[in-house]
């Protein structure tokens, strides 16, 4: 047995030295990682800097790449106007789920945020607003207790300060790792919006790619104006679950922004480059007269 093994080992070394070596005989070309990005929709290779300068939109097919919360904040709101609120609220592990802490840690590294929801005050062409942005880089923008609490506090703050509220959603839904407590955040956030509503204040919900599950079925669908950003998947159940349930192929364009518009679920579909302009226009229509407070 030992002989056999040592024999094999010799043969392998021989192979490595004499045969495989020959194939590695070329000068490696130095291609740095991440210089080109492949478009999810048309497959084109896009120079990263071109993509970045183009608001992360494919210059060939207009596909909107996912965008992190920080980037979206600086793209949409007045430079330097954002002041973060409620960053002290963070997730715990109420179900003692194995691996959840690691997932949170990864999400933090990946997104640069404490939680999947970045929120605070910001202005848009000098109109003060409260803004919240879900980041799909943090555990798919899922809503657990911490996200639910931050969303609720943001809504309550807007209610108290009588300010317009804009929330960008990007979420796979309720956060499984916190079980029933995540589900209850749907009721909590929607409840806060009921009282916000009663004060006659404006809430614009912008659904970006993707907005599904418990987030779609709570605050994301409850805007006075519901906007779908172009290239977004929006719906309650994910396409995979629906396919498994009904055992048929899904129609072309199912659950896209255009589908939601055609079925009367959103007020308008907005191209990312027009987002700031559109939000500004809508905010202007709802400007409160001085002394209206």
């Amino acid at each position: 047995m030992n002989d056999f093994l040592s024999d094999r080992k010799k043969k392998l070394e021989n192979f490595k030295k004499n045969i495989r070596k020959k194939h590695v005989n070329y000068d490696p070309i130095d291609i740095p990682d991440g210089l080109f990005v492949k478009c999810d929709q048309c497959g084109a290779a896009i120079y990263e800097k071109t993509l970045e300068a183009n608001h992360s939109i494919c210059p060939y097919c207009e596909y909107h790449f996912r965008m992190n919360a920080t980037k979206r904040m600086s793209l949409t709101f007045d430079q330097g106007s954002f002041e973060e609120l409620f960053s002290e609220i963070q997730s715990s592990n109420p179900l003692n789920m194995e691996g959840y802490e690691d997932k949170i840690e990864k999400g933090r590294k990946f997104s640069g945020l404490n939680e999947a929801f970045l929120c605070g005050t910001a202005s848009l062409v000098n109109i003060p607003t409260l803004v919240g942005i879900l980041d799909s880089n943090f555990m798919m923008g899922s809503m657990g207790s911490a996200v639910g609490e931050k969303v609720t506090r943001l809504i309550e703050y807007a209610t108290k300060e009588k300010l317009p509220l804009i929330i960008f959603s990007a979420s796979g839904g309720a956060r499984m790792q916190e079980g029933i407590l995540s589900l209850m955040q749907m009721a909590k956030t929607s409840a806060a919006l009921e009282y916000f509503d009663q004060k006659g204040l404006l809430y614009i919900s912008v659904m970006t790619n993707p907005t599904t599950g418990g987030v779609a079925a709570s605050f994301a669908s409850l805007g006075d104006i519901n906007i779908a950003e172009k290239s977004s998947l929006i719906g309650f159940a994910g396409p995979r679950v629906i396919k498994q349930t009904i055992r048929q192929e899904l129609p072309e364009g199912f659950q896209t922004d255009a589908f939601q518009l055609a079925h009367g679920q959103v007020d308008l579909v907005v191209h990312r480059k027009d987002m700031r302009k559109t939000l500004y226009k809508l905010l202007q229509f709802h400007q409160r007269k001085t002394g209206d407070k």
Partner: protein
Amino acid sequence: MSETNVAWEKVKLARHPKRPTASYLIKELFPDFIELHGDRGFADDEAITAGLATFNGIPMTIVAEEKGRNTEEKIKHNFGMPHPEGYRKAIRLMKQAEKFKRPILCIIDTPGAYPGIGAEERGQAQAIAYNLKTMIGLKTPIIVLVLSEGGSGGALAIGVGDHIFMFENSIYAILSPEGFASIIYKDSAKADYAASIMKLTAEDLKAFNVIDTIIKEQEGLHVNPDYGIQSFKTELTKVLKKLIPLSSTKLLKNRYQKYREMGVYIEKGAANEPETTED
């Protein structure tokens, strides 16, 4: 697993083929029940049975998810999985209850809201969200009973209320244990293990303050439904007595507070953030 998996046993009991569905409870509790149909927009969704009845002489509105008991019934009621028109029928009748100052009883029994093409086309997400937001502000007592299976947003969409009851052998969760296992462990066959950590039993949910009262079943509703139903009847009488005299301001304040406090999170040394309590 060496010790008995209590949660999985409950899942099996909650889905026991002999366990009564909502229609049986309605028949037993409300002999004068009259069913009302339709969302006034699209259709009548038979996954939700709703209507009027009296309880101890008090007119009430009943909204119940109905699974059906045999194959034919199950198909008719779509296995208790509502479409948007079901939730819209439910909220239409709840608003009517508010108008006539009738207390509402919602009976939850669903694997979840139906995931299908028509459901998406007609706005399943929007329908659920609208119910959550509306129920929190309805100026009439809302009592919720989880009868067997409380599945996800499809359950919560008729589950926001002032007092939440759960039968001893019912479950209430973010997703079915099978769905949970397939997402977290990429294997739906690990449903029994998933059930054991999901905290989906009545006791678990009571500990999280997600529900208020557990209704004992003795041998189980599938063996002796009358025991559980009689206990619920006694509890419902007590709770109605407590809720009906409350002013709507007080009722709604309590209801808001109940949901406001749900969730477990860490608050790291709150520094300069403003106070945000409601006035």
